[in-house]
């Protein structure tokens, strides 16, 4: 008796719950069911200096978009997982985003390793995906569902070689870090050097944690005919190279990569940084851009919004990549008029002349990066600050 009673009660309770459960989403859907934007970022771990501003940017702009009524009249909901920079975790989280959270689109993937690892999942699930990572392999060869916002190392090499060519430099030496960034850029630069008629006379490397690079630089100094030196690297290595470069009093101009395009590099290298040339995103010199520059309003607005919330000097190009990703995907939704995955992807591929923090983006079936060399500006360090080279 008591058993049956309990069972009946359970049934009744279940039925009541079922009714409310059925009623609630129905009511909510007519109001506005949120658009779910999935993301997986390395907010902790070694790549956290990339992932942290990316997440802050997404949260900040999703909040402000929601305050303005959302997209397609629906609020945006960010579903985020922290990968700690681990590609294996990225795979697990992306599976969860696709299968359990049933997100509408995915943007994210702080490091190239994470992004490359999850690309097959995106293709299989037919999920529109915009990556925030640097590697060229993400969009070359082009995959139907995968796009990316940051410029590639190859473009940085080309920008540098363009500047060298303008200076009449044809024979250079390279000293590269052996970390992922340095090694990748070293290979890319060597690949495109011929296109600009540039000959690499010496090709030295150093470990990312090395404390002294004078031996390698002495070799470069004693190589005849070197007109300029290029140092693809990341972290404190390039700062030590720059100090050692001045210590050895090498006369040829020194080029650094976009890997050190932050105020920190100037702090670390100090006076030795004077005269160093490097390519960097427009965001770094937002206020210094001429008013006629069409990118100026975008980068100044992003910089002010981000620094207004997170403190002066906190803005980075990495957060900018996340900004561009969010803007591109929501723009595609608006043009598609729905969150249907295929429609959003098609609209995304038709993006034309979107002006973002990374440059002007025009996607096509053959180009899922959509940036030109104009994405980079050549800078020279003068008086402890960036100066635009016209």
């Amino acid at each position: 008796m008591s058993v049956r009673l309990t069972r009946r009660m359970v049934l009744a309770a279940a039925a009541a719950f079922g009714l409310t459960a059925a009623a609630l989403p129905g009511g909510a859907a007519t109001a506005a069911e949120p658009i779910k934007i999935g993301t997986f970022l390395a907010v902790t771990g070694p790549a956290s200096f990339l992932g942290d501003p990316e997440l802050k940017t997404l949260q900040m702009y999703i909040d402000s978009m929601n305050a303005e009524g959302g997209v397609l009249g629906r609020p945006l909901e960010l579903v985020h997982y922290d990968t700690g920079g681990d590609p294996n975790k990225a795979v697990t989280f992306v599976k969860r985003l696709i299968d359990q959270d049933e997100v509408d689109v995915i943007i994210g993937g702080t490091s190239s390793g994470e992004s490359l690892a999850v690309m097959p999942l995106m293709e299989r699930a037919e999920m529109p995906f915009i990556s925030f990572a640097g590697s060229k392999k993400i969009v070359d060869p082009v995959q139907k569902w995968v796009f990316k916002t940051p410029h590639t190392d190859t473009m940085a090499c080309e920008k540098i070689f363009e500047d060298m060519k303008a200076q009449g430099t044809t024979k250079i030496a390279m000293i590269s870090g052996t970390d992922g960034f340095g090694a990748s850029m070293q290979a890319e630069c060597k690949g495109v050097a011929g296109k600009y008629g540039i000959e690499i006379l010496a090709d030295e490397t150093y470990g990312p944690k090395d404390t002294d690079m004078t031996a390698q630089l002495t070799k470069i100094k004693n190589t005849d005919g070197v007109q300029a030196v290029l140092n693809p690297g990341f972290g404190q290595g390039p700062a030590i190279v720059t100090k050692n470069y001045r210590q050895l009093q090498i006369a040829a101009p020194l080029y650094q990569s976009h890997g050190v395009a932050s105020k920190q590099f100037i702090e670390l290298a100090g006076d030795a940084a004077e005269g160093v040339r490097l390519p960097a995103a427009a965001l770094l010199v937002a206020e210094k851009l001429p008013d006629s520059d069409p990118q100026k309003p975008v980068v100044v607005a992003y910089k002010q919004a981000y620094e207004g919330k997170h403190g002066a000097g906190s803005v980075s190009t990495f957060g900018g990549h996340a900004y561009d990703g969010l803007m591109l995907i929501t723009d595609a939704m608006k043009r598609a008029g729905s969150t249907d995955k295929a429609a959003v992807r098609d609209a995304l591929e038709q993006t034309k002349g979107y002006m973002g923090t990374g440059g002007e983006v025009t996607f096509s079936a053959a180009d899922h990066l959509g940036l030109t060399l104009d994405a980079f500006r050549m800078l020279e360090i003068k008086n402890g600050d960036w100066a635009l080279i016209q």
Partner: protein
Amino acid sequence: MLGEFMQYLFSGLTSGAIYALVGLGFALIYNASHVINFAQGEFVMLGGMSTVFLSAAGVPLPVAVLLAVAATAVVGLALEKLAVEQTKNASVVTLIIITIGASIVIRGAAQVIFDKQFHTLPAFTGDAPINVLGATITPQTLWVLGVTVAIVLVLQWFFNRTLWGKAILATSVNPLAAKLVGINTNLVLLISFGLSAALGAIAGVLITPITSTNFEVGIMLGLKGFSAAILGGLGSPFGAVAGGLILGIVEAFGAGYISSEYKDAMAFVIILLALFFMPSGLFGKRGTDRV
């Protein structure tokens, strides 16, 4: 030709002096306990980072250095008191594992307390390179070398001429016998952790203008310093310095004359060969373990 040779030598001396200074800290704790303290690199990092942050907070540099060294010494004392001593008579291997754990904790804490960025300090006496025989060396390298020599001399005197130094050596040779003759072995261990933490901090301050520092810098410096101490013979301060300089010079000449790709490999090959033919290091005391 001579200029090139001299420059490679100076390059080797610069990194070698850094390895030597870090290696000294390993020697000190090993002398007292036969423990290889894998948190030694973290002491180096703490010295550099605390100085950077104190001086950024407006503390004058010399005071910041003293405070940073003292603070790091306190961390070293705490490590001994709270972790090593609690294990009572744990084996040396257990203690080594504890130091690895401690290094991870310190690194994590530094990441939270300080930040994840790289920082540097101004060179003590300017950046103007000194020209010698067509090669250049920075004044900061001379500081590192000079302080390393001074520390070696002080340590030699301390271990051979003072009662405390001899007590530390005695504890290392035979803890039970040392206890029987009235040496407070716990105190000896405590002091050696404090001293080597302070030593690590001094190294951290001296090398920050050359290498810059961040919360992770201790990993690689610790590894190189450990290699230096092993090469020279564990427990011998003089050996640690010689090992560090040899390591640095081999790396520099390897990078200069052969290929920078194999720089680290060459250094480690030298260590392997040395240990193969001289298992107790170049200047270590021959092991005479009775079976």
